[in-house]
């Protein structure tokens, strides 16, 4: 049997009714994403990227169309069943970081495990949260609160939180949106490592060079898919990072 798509969207529409005006945020998207893919969704502001991501992440329901996640028909699930799916299968990194303020990085990362179906002991929660923070290179800051962390560090806490329940699907809405180019490359490095480990990743980005770390690139316009192609010249984050460091070194030496 051929491997089944993780994400199978058919004629997805999302219509917002604000007063008199009808906004077709997503307007007929059909899309299959296979396990192990690394997809970038691009498009201008307001083209429906976040709306689409929220529906893929089972946070929002399409106005019409069908969505199968891992073979499960999401449109038939109620809100609690969708919550369970979000917890077990999906790691979501939000456009804003959406961390709990006045809560340490470690507690933020532990949070999804509090709602896990499986019984996880306190010690194991801690161990897993720390492992997750290590994965994004932030283990030393585990007892810092979000307001004590830089934007890039907060973004990594958000990624660590998305990974802690070992999801098979990682969704990220502009994970590098507010980051400088070096930090962006570092984050893409983390993503590439995760993808190599077998996690399917779908991320939204505005920047073409960020998209070129992915394997597949989809461009939305007015809620419709305009372009869907494989990334031709894929970049390697580790390599790019070394190149960047060398360049910085050269500037300093000069």
């Amino acid at each position, binding site marked *: 049997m051929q491997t089944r798509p993780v994400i199978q969207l058919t004629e997805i529409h999302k219509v917002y009714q604000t007063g008199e005006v009808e906004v077709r945020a997503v307007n007929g998207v059909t899309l299959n994403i296979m396990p192990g893919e690394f997809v970038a969704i691009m498009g201008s502001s307001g083209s429906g990227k976040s709306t689409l991501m929220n529906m893929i*992440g089972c*946070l929002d329901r399409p106005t019409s169309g069908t969505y199968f996640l891992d073979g499960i028909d999401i449109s038939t699930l109620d809100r609690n069943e969708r919550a*369970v799916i*979000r917890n077990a299968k999906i790691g979501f990194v939000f456009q804003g970081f*959406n961390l*709990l303020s006045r*809560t340490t990085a470690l507690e933020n990362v532990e949070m999804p495990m*509090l*709602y896990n179906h499986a019984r996880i002991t306190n010690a194991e929660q801690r161990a897993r949260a720390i492992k997750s923070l290590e994965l994004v290179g932030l283990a030393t800051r585990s007892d810092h609160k979000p307001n004590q962390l830089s934007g890039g560090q907060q973004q990594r806490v958000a990624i660590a939180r998305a990974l802690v329940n070992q999801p098979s699907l990682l969704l990220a809405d502009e994970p590098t949106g507010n980051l400088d180019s070096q930090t962006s490359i570092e984050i893409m490095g983390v993503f590439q490592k995760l993808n190599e480990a077998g996690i399917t990743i779908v991320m939204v980005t505005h920047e073409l060079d960020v998209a070129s770390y992915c394997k597949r690139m989809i461009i939305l316009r007015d809620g419709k898919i305009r372009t869907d192609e494989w990334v031709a010249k894929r970049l390697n984050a580790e390599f790019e990072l070394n190149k960047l460091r060398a360049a910085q070194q050269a500037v300093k030496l000069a």
Partner: protein
Amino acid sequence: MMRLLAPFKIAARALRRNKMRSLLTMLGIIIGVGSVIAAVSITTGATKQVEDKVASLGQNIVTVFSGNFSSGGMRGGWGSAPTLTVEDSRAIKNEVDNVVAVSPEVRDRSQILANGQNWNTQVLGESPDYPQIRDWDIVNGAMFTDGDVRALSKVAIIGKTVVDQLFPTDDPVGQTLVVRNIPFKIVGVLESKGFNLFGQDQDDVVIIPYTSHMRRLSKRTFVNSIMVQAADKESIVQVQTDITTLLRDRHKSAEQDFTVRTQLEVMQMATQTSRVMSVLLAAIASVSLLVGGIGIMNIMLVSVTERTREIGIRMAVGARGRDILIQFLIEAVTLSVAGGLVGIALGMVAAKVVAASTGWPTVTPVIWIGIACFSSAGIGIISGFYPAWKASRLDPIEALRYE
């Protein structure tokens, strides 16, 4: 087990993060529960004191007073109408079942002289059964006898206060006491009993045979009252009924000219006040707890609105409506129960302070501690439910977008 403990962990974190607000929210419940516990402790102590006093009247007592309290006011006061006789008391002893002791009682106040001192005190005429009826021991010497009653002997037993006044240093037994120029020989001293229900010193008393009192001192043919002791608690009512029937039959007057009171009735009358107090307390309690509950609901509603984003984040990572509901309910219940516990402690301390400064005894009934715990938990659930339900119904996307 983790899934059971997780909501407590989340609630504890949320409350710790907002310590001052949590404390202020609890204040309503603390004050409510605290004042209730303090008031209950004080009234229960007072009631217990009254009950002890009533018990100090003796065991299973039925008292017959002359006159009828329930008709036409209290003409001349209790026990003043000349209707009861020594024969009535004899008839009660002989004809009523389950009567173990009877004492006709004659009361008088007199100036008494002894040992070169004088003192104004109550002089009672009683039968030898009296100490048994009143459950009152003779600590020195012995009670006078039936022989003394028949012989109209000039003998007396005296209370502790009289001893203190007239014989501060010597042994009073064997000494002489003069009442209205008649010398009585002191044969016994009663144990100290303290003040009675009406604040009278029960130890300020001289007791002589009722015959001696009626013939030698007061020159009366009627007694003020008759004290009867029933065999046990169960027979009190029967004894009361039988005495009523017997005396009505004997007196043959159109209107009942005597009153029969049992100790139970006295107890009920005496505790009436504290029962009224209890009802009042319950009312105060409900009002203050209601106010506390509204305080909690108010803060929880504010908290839900304030934490809309947090709720959205939790839902986004997989919290179900139920998880959010439980989280906020537990926060509310934690607040109210913690407030309740602090209130119980403070209420008991306040009662102790009152006890120390006024000398009233205070008793905190365990049941009220239970009621306080239970109702504060209940208030938490009731006042927390609506905000928690509201939180659980939020849509994750809209909650995340909330500013």
